[in-house]
C-alpha cells in the first residue's frame, strides 16, 4: 500500500535526503516519506569522488566540515548502524603552484586552526615524506591535514536510510515526483508516479534535478547542473595515503581503502545540462594529468569511467533554507563538489530548520543571501 499522507515528503534518496530523513526521525518526527525516482545513491552521491576534507577557507565551511568529520568518525554509534562506512583518515594533500596559492593556504590554515582542524604547510620535500613518488616539479608548497580522507558514499547513504526506516520513515524507491500541488499559497500534496501523497511540507533534496523540482512548485531556484567526469582503476596494494588535490593544476586523486584509485578534474566549457556520458577526451586528459603528478600510476589499469552532475549555485555554496515565497518548501541544494562531506552536519541543520527550532549553527546558507549580496566567498572549491 502506498503511503498517501506525510508530515513531510523528502524528494531525493541521495546522501542529503537520507541524512535529513534520519535526523528528522531521530528527533521524533513521524510520518516522513522519502521519494526516490530510481534507487538510493543513484544520483551524484553514488557517482562522487568519496573525499572528505576539512581544509576550507571560510569559517562556516571549516565548521560544517569539522562537525561532519566528527560524525563520520563515530558513525556506528551516531547512526546506530552495523554498516562499515570505510572511513580512511590519511589526509588531504593540497598542492600549491604559485605564491598566491601558498598565501591563500596560509590564510585558510589560520582559520582552520580556530576550529581545531590540524592542518599545516609543507615544503615540497616534506610532501615526499607523505607521498614518496609525488612529482614535485614546479611545486611551491603543500597544505596537509592528516584527519581528512575518504568514506564510502553508498554505505553512508544506506546506513542513514536503514536507520531512518528503523525509526519509521517510509522510503519509496522507483517512485518519481511529477508535481507539487498548492492551494491558497500553501503546499497540499506531492504527485508521484505511484499516486498522490498529501503533505504540507516538502524537502527538495533532488540534487541535479533541484531546479526542476522548484519549478513544480512555481519557484525559480538559481542552480544549474554540470557534468563532472571521473574514473577508477583496478585495486592494488596500498601505496597512496592521502587524497592528492590541486585547485590550480585541477586534479584530485585518491586510493580508496579497497585499493582502487579514484580521480577526476573540473571540466572547462561544460554546458548547463543533465548530460552524464563519458568522454575519450576526459580519459586522455586525466591520464596525462595523473601520470605526470603520480608517475607510478602509468602501470595501473583503468577499469571504469563515468560521470555525475554537480548542482551549482551562484557562489558554489549550498542553499539550505525554507523558501520565503512558499511556506513549507524546504531545500538543500547546490552542493557543487562537496555535498557528501557536509551531509552529516547539513542533516542536523535541516532538522532544526524544519522543526522550527533555533538554528544549531550560525551559518549563512539561505537563498536570500544572493539578493542581500552576502554571497560566500570560499576560495577553496573545485
Amino acid at each position, binding site marked *: 500500500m502506498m503511503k498517501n499522507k506525510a508530515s513531510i515528503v523528502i524528494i531525493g534518496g541521495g546522501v542529503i535526503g537520507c541524512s535529513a530523513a534520519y535526523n528528522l526521525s531521530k528527533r521524533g518526527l513521524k510520518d516522513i516519506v522519502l521519494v526516490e525516482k530510481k534507487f538510493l545513491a543513484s544520483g551524484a552521491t553514488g557517482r562522487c569522488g568519496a573525499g572528505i576534507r576539512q581544509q576550507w577557507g571560510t569559517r562556516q565551511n571549516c565548521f560544517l566540515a569539522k562537525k561532519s568529520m566528527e560524525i563520520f568518525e563515530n558513525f556506528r554509534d551516531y547512526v546506530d548502524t552495523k554498516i562499515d562506512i570505510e572511513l580512511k583518515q590519511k589526509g588531504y594533500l593540497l598542492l600549491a603552484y604559485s605564491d598566491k596559492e601558498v598565501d591563500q593556504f596560509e590564510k585558510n590554515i589560520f582559520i582552520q586552526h580556530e576550529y581545531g582542524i590540524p592542518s599545516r604547510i609543507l615544503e615540497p620535500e616534506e610532501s615526499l615524506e607523505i607521498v614518496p613518488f609525488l612529482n614535485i616539479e614546479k611545486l611551491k608548497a603543500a597544505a596537509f591535514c592528516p584527519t581528512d580522507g575518504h568514506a564510502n558514499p553508498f554505505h553512508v547513504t544506506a546506513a542513514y536510510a536503514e536507520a531512518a526506516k528503523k525509526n519509521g520513515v517510509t522510503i519509496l524507491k522507483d517512485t518519481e515526483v511529477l508535481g507539487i500541488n498548492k492551494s491558497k499559497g500553501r503546499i497540499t500534496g506531492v504527485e508521484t508516479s505511484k499516486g498522490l501523497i498529501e503533505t504540507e511540507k516538502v524537502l527538495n533534496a533532488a540534487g541535479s534535478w533541484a531546479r526542476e523540482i522548484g519549478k513544480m512548485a512555481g519557484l525559480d531556484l538559481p542552480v544549474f547542473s554540470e557534468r563532472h567526469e571521473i574514473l577508477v582503476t583496478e585495486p592494488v596494494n596500498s601505496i597512496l595515503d592521502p587524497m592528492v588535490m590541486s585547485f590550480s593544476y585541477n586534479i584530485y586523486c585518491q586510493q580508496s581503502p579497497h585499493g582502487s584509485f579514484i580521480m577526476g578534474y573540473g571540466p572547462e566549457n561544460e554546458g548547463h545540462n543533465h548530460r552524464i556520458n563519458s568522454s575519450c577526451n576526459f580519459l586522455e586528459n586525466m*591520464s596525462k594529468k595523473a601520470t605526470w603528478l603520480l608517475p607510478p600510476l602509468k602501470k595501473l589499469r583503468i*577499469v*571504469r569511467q563515468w560521470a555525475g552532475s554537480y548542482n551549482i549555485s551562484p557562489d558554489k555554496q549550498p542553499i539550505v533554507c525554507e523558501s520565503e515565497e512558499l511556506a513549507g518548501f524546504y531545500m538543500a541544494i547546490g552542493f557543487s563538489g562537496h555535498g557528501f562531506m557536509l551531509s552529516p552536519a547539513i542533516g542536523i541543520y535541516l532538522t532544526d530548520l524544519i522543526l522550527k527550532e533555533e538554528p544549531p549553527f550560525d551559518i549563512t546558507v539561505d537563498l536570500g543571501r544572493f539578493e542581500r549580496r552576502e554571497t560566500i566567498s570560499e576560495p577553496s572549491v573545485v
Partner: protein
Amino acid sequence: MMKEDNIIVCRCEDVTLKDIRELIKRGYTNIEEIKRITRCGMGPCQGKNCGQIILREISMITGIPVEKLTLQRYRPPFGGIKFSEVLGENNDEK
C-alpha cells in the same frame, strides 16, 4: 550442497551468495544497488560472471521474472586499459 557462504558469486571482488541474499532481503532488489554496495560487477569483468547469478537470486526472492530484470550497465573503457596505453606508450616495463 555447498553452503551459501562458501559460494563465491563475484570472483573479482570476493562476494558470496550469502552476501547477495542478505542484501536482497534487506530491500536492495535492483542489481545497480547491489553492485554499489558489494562492488559485485565493479571489477575487471564488469559483471560478466556475477550478473546472471544475481538476477536469478533477485527473481527468486522477489518473484519478478528474470526477463523483466536488467543487467547492470557496462562502463567504458571496456575490458580495462592501462594509463600508459591511453598515453600511447606501449613499452611500460622500464
